[in-house]
């Protein structure tokens, strides 16, 4: 190999650079996210159920919201009938956040943990939260 | 060949760092715009496009004008353009990149730029413009690079380059035609709504682009040992002359239809630009400057003894370039917006930050141009005594 010294040095520097997030976070303790369901509306529900089962929502809520957004805005079809046949209005502000009125402790809990910043809230209005 | 851009004189590096500094200032200004929105520009509800889109429109013309060297050289076998044609192609590359940057800085949501390709709308001229500009950039990079590389090796370019060159000719015409169609098909925008818009875009492009190329060639001759050839430059000067004459003629046609018909919608924009309307006259001085410079340049170019004098030719090209830059890069856009479709007037003038961003984009364009020219010149200097094979 030509210039092996320089090449190997380059590879090492590259690896150090790429691996930065890993060794930067070594030894840091970050709490596992624990989204809270403690809101007045949810507490009053007899049957604590989201539009779809919890496991589904956990994995697919972003796809579902994206889908809702497209079919509501582009096709003008604003209702969603879930697997149990129950009808919901497709609305982040008026359906999702009516129950999950604790954005800070529900949405942000995981989003912050996985470092995603959905830009929903540049337009959609966050529910007013009572700061504890 | 890129390595050729990494070695150069002190002067070369000074110029490079100067451009980087200007581009950096533009970038900082852009960060302000990114944060606070296009409110930092002089744009408004009534004049929703301004300096950025004007520069874009003007530079599409500069990019398309490379075809004025390609046609004589490759279609008519005009050998004297052999050395200079690469300068035209590389000018086109940097001009198209500037166009794209101007579109980018003009966008309200630049992070969504890929939506144009993800959700294409074939009835939108802007979609086609994005498509043809991208294609033209690719064509010129490939053609320029392949021919230059072959020259360096002293061989003929690969056989697949020729069809691409032929393709680039109608493609160049198309980029400027499509750009004109952005404007020429809009209802109730009288100033733009003319079948002549695309034709006059092309004529002004074929005057302004080659004029810039003459200026650049003069600089290249001064700073390097590469000489594009005085005969080549004189031939380009003739192209500039004819194109400019056609351009002024087209302006005359437009003036006749607009003014003789007496239809107010057609006259208002012209009145705003050249005499002022209802006391609004911000653009009047620069529009008259443009007109006077156009006449001056045309006189200097049409007289053969004047045109043959290198100093006067360069001056004529500079004057012509400034004239067309004002007319197309500014007046044309603003004239279409003022007065608005209800006959009300909102004036436009670029802000300081907007100007910095614009200068920054030009600096990036010149940076790319400098690097590409450095490569081309270095190759040409090495092969100064070798006959070109393509």
């Amino acid at each position, binding site marked *: 190999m030509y210039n092996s010294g320089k090449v190997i040095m380059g590879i090492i520097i590259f690896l150090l650079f790429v691996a930065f997030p890993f060794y930067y976070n070594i030894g840091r303790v970050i709490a596992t996210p624990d989204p809270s369901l403690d809101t007045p509306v949810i507490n009053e529900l007899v049957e604590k159920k989201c539009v*779809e089962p919890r496991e*589904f929502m956990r994995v697919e809520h972003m*796809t579902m919201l*994206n*889908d809702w*957004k497209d*079919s509501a*805005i*582009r*096709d*003008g*079809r*604003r*209702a*969603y*009938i879930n*697997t149990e046949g129950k*009808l919901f*209005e497709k609305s982040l*502000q008026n359906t999702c956040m009516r129950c999950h009125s604790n954005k800070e402790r529900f949405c942000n809990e995981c989003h912050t943990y996985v470092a995603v910043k959905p*830009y929903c809230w*540049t*337009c959609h*209005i966050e529910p007013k939260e009572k700061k504890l | 060949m890129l390595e050729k851009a990494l070695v150069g004189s002190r002067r070369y590096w000074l110029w490079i760092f100067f451009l980087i500094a200007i581009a950096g200032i533009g970038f900082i200004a852009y960060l302000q715009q990114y944060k*606070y*929105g*296009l*409110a930092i520009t002089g*744009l*408004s*509800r*009534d004049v*929703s*496009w301004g300096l950025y889109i004007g520069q874009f429109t003007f530079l599409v013309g500069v990019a398309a004008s490379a075809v004025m060297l390609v046609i004589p050289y490759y279609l008519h076998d005009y050998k004297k353009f052999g050395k200079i044609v690469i300068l035209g192609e590389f000018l086109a590359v940097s001009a198209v990149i500037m166009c794209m940057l101007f*579109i980018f800085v003009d*966008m*309200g*949501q630049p992070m*969504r730029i890929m*939506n*144009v390709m*993800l*959700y294409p*709308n074939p*009835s*939108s001229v*802007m979609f086609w413009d*994005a498509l043809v500009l991208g294609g033209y950039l690719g064509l010129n990079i490939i053609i320029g690079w392949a021919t230059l590389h072959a020259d360096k090796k002293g061989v003929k370019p690969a056989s697949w380059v020729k069809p691409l060159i032929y393709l680039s000719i109608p493609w160049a015409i198309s980029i400027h035609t499509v750009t004109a169609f*952005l404007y020429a098909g*809009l*209802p*109730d*925008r009288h100033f733009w709504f003319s079948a002549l818009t695309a034709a006059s875009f092309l004529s002004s492009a074929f005057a302004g682009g080659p004029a810039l190329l003459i200026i650049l060639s003069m600089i290249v001759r001064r700073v390097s040992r590469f000489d594009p050839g005085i005969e080549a430059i004189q031939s380009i000067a003739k192209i500039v002359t004819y194109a400019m004459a056609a351009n002024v003629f087209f302006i005359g046609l437009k003036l006749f239809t607009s003014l003789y018909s007496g239809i107010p919608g057609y006259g208002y924009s012209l009145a705003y630009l050249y005499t002022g309307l209802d006391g609004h006259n911000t653009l009047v001085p620069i529009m008259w400057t443009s007109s006077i410079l156009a006449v001056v340049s045309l006189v200097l170019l049409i007289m053969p003894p004047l045109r043959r004098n290198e100093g006067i030719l360069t001056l004529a090209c500079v004057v012509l370039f400034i004239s067309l830059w004002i007319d197309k890069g500014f007046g044309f856009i603003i004239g*279409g*917006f003022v007065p*608005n*479709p*209800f*006959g009300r007037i*909102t004036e436009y003038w670029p802000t300081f930050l907007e100007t910095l961003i614009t200068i920054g984009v030009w600096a990036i364009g010149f940076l790319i141009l400098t690097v590409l020219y450095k490569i081309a010149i270095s190759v040409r200097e090495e092969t100064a005594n070798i006959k070109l094979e393509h």
Partner: protein
Amino acid sequence: MSMDRRGFLKLIGLSSIGIGAGWMIRKPGEFLEAGSVSDLPGALEAKQWGMVIDTSKFKTEADYKKVINACHKAHNVPAIENPNHEIKWIWTDDFAHTFSEAKHQYMTEGLKDKMVLLLCNHCKNPPCVRVCPTKATFKRKDGIVQQDMHRCIGCRFCMTACPYGARSFNYTNPRPYIKETNPEYPTRMIGVVEKCIFCEGRLARGLMPACVEASQGAMLFGDLSDTNSVVREALRRHYTLVRKPKLGTEPVVFYILDLGRDKGGGEYA
């Protein structure tokens, strides 16, 4: 196995195209197999929505204000003072500037200066839809020219193309300029274009557009394809105008012009 550098690069290139293509093929919602799409109960539907504005019923400043406020409040339209950055879904201008083709030198002052309510015309042949490079603005089956704020790239081509000045661009973050926020409707973000959407969200919930509701009969809304609708009835009974008919955009917002009443009596002396 042996592979030269060229072959390796080709393989890499092809595989990356493959990965890209695979990602492109995946459409949103492909993994969503639960539930189904429907309409809300009581949703209002039409083949072609249309509006008729009775100009004679707008007499005082307050008549316009209450309609404009109803719309702008419902949709969180910011009140930006700087006219260059102004956002408006529904607004007023005088008759002479609105119907400039009908204007002439000796028109009565009362008519020339008469204020007219303006909004998006939801044209049957909308130039804004034609020019939008991303289909962010598009025509719905019921004729509404819809604006998808999620997709708009802020190129402002639609503003240039609209001959009615119906479109506003968010030159700056609109939120600080919204005095009273309606928590049931979103705001917009910086850098997108917005306009009247005929309250398609309200129609989907069985409600009339906010302006129509607030106008107390001065604005009519209905299905133009239905000969028995209120709008067709009004169009039959009155002299009506649309803005700039010569452009072929075919607006569906009509203006009732009762000339007699404007002049204060229909008698010619």
